[in-house]
């Protein structure tokens, strides 16, 4: 196991730059998740770490060794691919032992490592089967087993659960989390699913257009996002954003007006100096609306999503890109087409610069 460090890592395809000077530190034993929308560069960054993509500029170290231009096999990494990439003509045992065989590891040692990995992944009964005779979940386990037997410094996962059905995905998510705990290995995991990121990660790296928007613990990113993009991307359903205008900044208390939530001025917790009349965005998560709170707002509800324990009320307004989403718990659930009065605590509201999207703290 080892820590990973990227310093100003750049990836260019000809004149097109897709990864822009990424700086990242992943601690030894961390489960780090790269998350972001399609085309944000998360898989490219993972492939750069694996050595499957040449790093155009910058430096990369694993366990203190400079691996920037090193062969993939010498970096001490193992990768689990989205498509599993199992060798179809080999049995499960052959798939798992192939890398060690190529590396001329003694047969007895190969057998020991493979059997141990099979035991951990509950694959013992399937060792003589070929991949086509396995289910999706079993194939995924074999792919993980193939990674485990090499005892790498860093495990790399490239959207490993995206080909599984919803139920199996949850199951495998738990399995991988358990495995991480059991092995104590450094793992880097790419996903576009922020639920996976939130549930599995010690550290989440949010990427957009080949740049890191923010990196930190799931709680940090959820509660204290650096910008509108991270605030909107982390959390499901997404955070509500409201256009607002700074009304006053007297005695260190900033008041903003949020027309969508009524006429009452909203006190927000910011220490940065704002100018009266400045346009800002105010963010409130759906669960920040509650039965009791210092402020109240009235919303026309056009859709109710009932998920059993919780419901989500959607309130659309002409000209708005996204509807306002309110989380509802308890017995009182409004009907579709009704008007809902909700309360919220203004201290939960986050403020962002209207132009740059940067958080105003």
């Amino acid at each position, binding site marked *: 196991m080892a820590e990973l460090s990227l310093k100003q890592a750049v990836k260019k395809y000809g004149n097109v730059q897709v990864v822009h000077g990424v700086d990242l530190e992943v601690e030894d034993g961390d489960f780090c998740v790269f998350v972001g929308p399609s085309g944000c560069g998360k898989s490219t960054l993972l492939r750069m770490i*694996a050595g499957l993509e040449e790093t155009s500029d910058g430096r990369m170290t694993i366990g203190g060794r400079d691996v920037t231009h090193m062969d993939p096999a010498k970096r001490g990494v193992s990768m689990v691919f989205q498509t599993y990439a199992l060798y179809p003509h080999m049995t499960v045992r052959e798939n798992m032992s192939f*890398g060690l065989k190529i590396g001329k590891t003694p047969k007895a040692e190969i057998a020991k490592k493979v059997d141990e990995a099979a035991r951990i992944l509950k694959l013992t009964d399937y060792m003589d089967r070929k991949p086509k005779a396995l289910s999706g979940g079993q194939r995924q386990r074999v792919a993980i087993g193939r990674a485990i037997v090499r005892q790498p410094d860093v495990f790399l996962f490239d959207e490993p659960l995206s080909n599984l059905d919803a139920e199996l995905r949850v199951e495998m998510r738990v399995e991988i989390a358990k495995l991480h705990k059991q092995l104590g290995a450094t793992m880097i995991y790419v996903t576009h699913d922020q639920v996976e990121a939130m549930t599995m990660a010690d550290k989440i790296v949010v990427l957009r257009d080949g740049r890191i928007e923010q990196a930190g613990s799931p709680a940090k990113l959820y509660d204290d996002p650096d910008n509108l993009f991270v605030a909107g991307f982390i959390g499901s359903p997404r955070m509500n954003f409201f256009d607002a205008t700074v009304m006053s900044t007297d005695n260190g208390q900033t008041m903003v007006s949020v027309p969508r939530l009524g006429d009452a001025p909203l006190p927000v917790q910011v220490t940065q100096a704002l100018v009266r009349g400045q346009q800002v965005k105010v963010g409130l998560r759906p669960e920040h609306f509650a039965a009791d709170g210092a402020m109240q707002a009235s919303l026309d509800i056009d859709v109710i999503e009932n998920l059993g324990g919780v419901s989500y009320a959607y309130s659309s307004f002409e000209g708005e890109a996204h509807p306002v989403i309110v989380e509802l718990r308890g017995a009182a659930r409004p009907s579709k087409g009704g008007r809902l009065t909700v309360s919220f605590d203004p201290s939960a509201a986050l403020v962002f610069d209207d132009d740059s999207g940067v958080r105003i703290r």
Partner: protein
Amino acid sequence: MSLTETQTTARAHTGPDWDFITRRAKSILVHGIVLALVGIMLLPLIYMVMMSFKTSTEIAQDPLGLPDSLYWGNYMAALSSMGYVRSVLNSLGITLSVIVVVVFAGAMAAYPLARLQNRTSRVIVMIMALGLATPNFVTITPIYVIFRDIGLLDSYLGIVLAFAALKLPLAVFFYTSFIAAIPMELEEAARLDNCNNWQIFWHVIRPLLAPVTATLSLFVMIMVWNDFIYPLLLLTDKDKLTVMIAVYKFVGNTGIDPTKLFPAAVLGSLPLLLMFAVFQRKIMAGATAGAVK
């Protein structure tokens, strides 16, 4: 609800089911056409086998009629005068050698061509296409002259090299398209498993080529086994002649000897038919590989 169902059922039995009859008629028609086509294709084969069992008198009196009995004397005579075993072994040796060379060289040439998507690889593929499109007769003279100059005339090595060169473009085409469909992730996984390019080809790509190799081998086998011109031109030693040249011995300058020519033709085709029958399943699997996921 139940009353309506009864009425519907009763109505269905009042007249003929025209849909069923039309479907049945179409099916019979289609099968009839297919059978007729198969019959037309088999006709020369049937004629050849039929003629091989006729005596010279029967052939002279009724060339299109069935033989009165299965006369094996023609086969005995053909076998004793054509050097059958020797010529079959020659054909077999040459054909298998060509297949081995074409399969290995073709697969190894196709691997980089399938993976390198640059101008050079595209130009090479185009040159291969030209090789495929060039008629065999165009290359006969240059091959003869070159082989004469380097002393490869009348040698097994020469005929194998000539056939291998002629069939290589076909192999490269077969393999290039097949390898291009193999997911890159398999190679990347192998690279992470410490494989170099050769090991990736040998341990990962090559085993996956089995179905397409079976199909390619069949095509090459048929073409080489049945080829007449190149062995006729490049081989003169009677101990090195292929079975098709041996069959041609019964076509003289002034006439043919049908009592020997037809059994010889059957005997010449027999090994090929047997091999096809044995490997048929693998060959068909290769021919349809990639059609569905």
